């Protein structure tokens, strides 16, 4: 048994890893910029960069040293001369490179490279250029303050000269903002000819090869650090802990009452199978299933709470506030459950041991409660354990409609405000709970049912 449990625990690991990978792919890769998703598309690039900095979203995705920065978007000039659009002495022209366009810089002038915000301090960056220098031309890239530029002092002599390039060539130069914290503005200076640039790119260097978003994410999970909500700035772990109790006060009664009711009705169905009573319950359960969940809540709240005043409409102050959501939860879930358990019971009814029991003269009641129910309990237990993680997730709609401050409410709010970190945390915890519940089911199964082989 111990070996079986150990083996099952080992099998859990790939699944949990898979969940981590999927959430990573979903939120870091597919979504584009989580910052833009959370803060909206109309905030300043600097704010987005800070958001990414805090959450590690500005690192390379899987591994690598270099990643882009919002301070300077990659420019290849195939559409416009941006970021030098309309600047004096800068011209966009067709050339024979892959992008087909380059900008040329007039000589004897210094040209500012427009950054959208000062570079992050204590980080290493690099400029990459694909450029060409005309015959006899020299060019430099140098840090300077555009307003206090003293031409006579020739500050570019302090900068880095572009290597001679009669034909297109790739060149990179490193900058380190920790060595010279004043390197906030960068300029180009050309003399004796023109400098043509085809592609220019600014990249930031990560601390090491594996200083990536994925490793950062794994590290966060290892530390049980779920991060902070971007909406309320509260730690997410705390928000989730606060939400669990209200969620459970709602979902546990719904689940327990629903389970008992469904099993009772399904036993009635099995007892009176193929009579009008059975058929009535079958049709009723399909009908209950077919009414949309939203409608249950809206109409229930409107009619029972608002019009007839039987229950409080909204809030979470006493037990009375929970009654209506529990009622709605039970009724709306009943159809599915009755259908499922009825099939389970009937499945058992057609087994051979039941025929034997009948043949040896056991009463219908005796067969049903002593034999069938006991054997059906295995399936019931499986279903119960597997439903436990769903209890944690709470009921998204019920909670937000009735103002119960649980995890469902939290989830809906997070979705409405695109709070990526909160959703990610809830999804992650829910999945882990599901995997653990699965483990318990299998252990229960092996323990209850001697036919299950422990291999």
């Amino acid at each position, binding site marked *: 048994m111990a070996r079986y449990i150990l083996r099952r625990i080992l099998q859990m690991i790939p699944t949990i890893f898979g969940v981590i990978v999927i959430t990573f792919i979903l939120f870091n890769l597919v979504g584009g910029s989580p910052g833009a998703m959370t803060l909206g598309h109309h905030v300043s690039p600097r704010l987005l960069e800070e958001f990414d900095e805090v959450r590690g979203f500005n690192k390379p995705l899987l591994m690598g040293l270099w990643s882009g920065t919002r301070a300077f978007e990659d420019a290849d000039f195939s559409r416009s001369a941006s970021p030098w659009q309309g600047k004096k002495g800068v011209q966009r022209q067709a050339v024979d490179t892959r992008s087909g366009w380059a900008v040329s810089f007039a000589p004897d002038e210094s040209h500012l490279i427009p950054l959208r915000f000062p570079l992050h301090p204590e980080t290493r960056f690099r400029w990459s250029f694909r450029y060409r220098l005309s015959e006899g031309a020299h060019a430099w890239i140098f840090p300077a303050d555009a307003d206090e530029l003293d031409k006579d002092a020739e500050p570019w002599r302090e900068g880095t000269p572009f290597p001679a390039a009669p034909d297109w060539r790739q060149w990179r130069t490193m900058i380190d903002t920790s060595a010279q914290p004043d390197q906030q503005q960068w300029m180009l200076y050309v003399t004796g000819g023109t400098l043509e640039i085809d592609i220019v790119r600014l990249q930031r260097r990560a601390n090491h090869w594996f200083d990536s978003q994925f490793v950062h994410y794994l590290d966060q999970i290892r530390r049980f650090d779920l991060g902070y909500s971007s909406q309320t700035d509260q730690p997410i772990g705390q928000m989730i802990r606060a939400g669990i109790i209200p969620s459970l006060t709602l979902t546990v009664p719904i689940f327990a009452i629903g389970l008992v009711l469904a099993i009772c009705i399904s036993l009635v169905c099995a007892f009176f199978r193929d009579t009008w009573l059975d058929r009535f319950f079958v049709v009723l359960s*399909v009908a209950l299933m077919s009414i*949309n969940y*939203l409608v249950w809540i809206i109409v229930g709240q409107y009619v029972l709470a608002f019009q007839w005043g039987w229950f409080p409409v909204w809030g979470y102050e006493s037990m009375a506030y929970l009654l209506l959501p529990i009622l709605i939860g039970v009724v709306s879930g009943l159809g599915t*459950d009755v259908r*499922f358990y009825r*099939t389970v019971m009937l499945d058992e009814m057609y087994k051979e041991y039941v025929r034997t029991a009948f043949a040896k003269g056991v009463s219908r009641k005796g067969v049903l409660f002593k034999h069938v129910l006991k054997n059906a309990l295995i399936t019931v237990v499986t279903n119960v354990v*597997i439903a436990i993680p*769903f209890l944690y997730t709470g009921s998204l709609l019920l909670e937000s409609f009735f103002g119960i401050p649980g995890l469902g409410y939290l989830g809906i709010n997070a979705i409405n405000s695109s709070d990526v970190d909160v959703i990610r945390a809830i999804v992650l915890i829910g999945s882990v709970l599901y995997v653990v519940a699965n483990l318990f089911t299998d252990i229960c199964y092996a323990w209850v049912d001697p036919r299950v082989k422990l291999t």
Partner: protein
Amino acid sequence: MSATTATAPQSGHSLWQEARRRLRRNRLAMACLWIIGIYTALALYGEGVYRWHQWRDVTPSYQRTDLDKQYLQPSYLRAPFAREQMDWATGETYTVSGWQRWGAGWTRLAQHPLGTDGLGRDVFQRLVQGTRIAYQVGIITSLIAIPLGVLLGCLAGYFGGRTDDFIVWLYSTFAAIPGLLFILAIAMVVGQGLLGVYLGIGLTMWVGLCRLIRGEVIKHRDRPYVAAARALGLSHVRIIFRHILPNVFHVVIVTFTLRFPAAIGTEVFLSFLGIGVQGEPSWGIMISNARLRLWHGVWWEMAFVTAAIFFIVLAFNLLGDALRDALDPRLRTEGEGDHE
């Protein structure tokens, strides 16, 4: 050939003919088929209306606001045959008499048969558009989920070994993530609009199908007919898709029938939350609008949307059950329901 005729059932019917015969005798299932047929016709009509307006580049009637016709009750409640009639535009009453009373009465009965909403838009037209969107979601999500589920299920079941391990790992990972939240997260990440809905539902729906198909294919893998096909030197692709798949295809049909209404329900939910359809009258958006109006006593919009969803979901659920009984009585209800 002679060997197969010896073992074939006396009636000489194939599985599908047999299933059709059994389904025909089931009156409830036939009624459901009729209901689904009517909905399909409405959805096609809605698609036509939608395309036509798009082609003409005009605002369709179901989107045009007309504040004179705000909150009209369903036509039969507006006493269409009464002597006293009211002009919507001016609010004046006028009397109709004689033949006109009856002739125009029928016209009035056909005008806004299910009433109008708070902006004077026709509820019936909007319901038809909702049907169109529901079908669109049901079909496209199936087009994502069915090929994915069938392909992966067949591969896992047929080849076993490493392939099977990988695919089982993949679907148990997907199954571990709480369904509704996963759909919401996908829809949120992909962005508002129908694409998010399609991907969200499609990428979660394939799991159940894949698991069922894998189980069925495993059962068939070692049957003599597969061994014979292998001995003939047929390729794996041919064996899987020409020989095994037709024998397990009923699983796909039953799953499709039972998942279609679930997809519709999820779409309603997503649109209600505002991450689904944008700016078009989906059922979820209608519920979301009608919900506020319900508190002012405007019940008909809510009632008709509820009825529209109810009948299509009911028809699909009952038909799915009937199909399952007809095609393969051994298939059981799938595990957990939707724990919302």
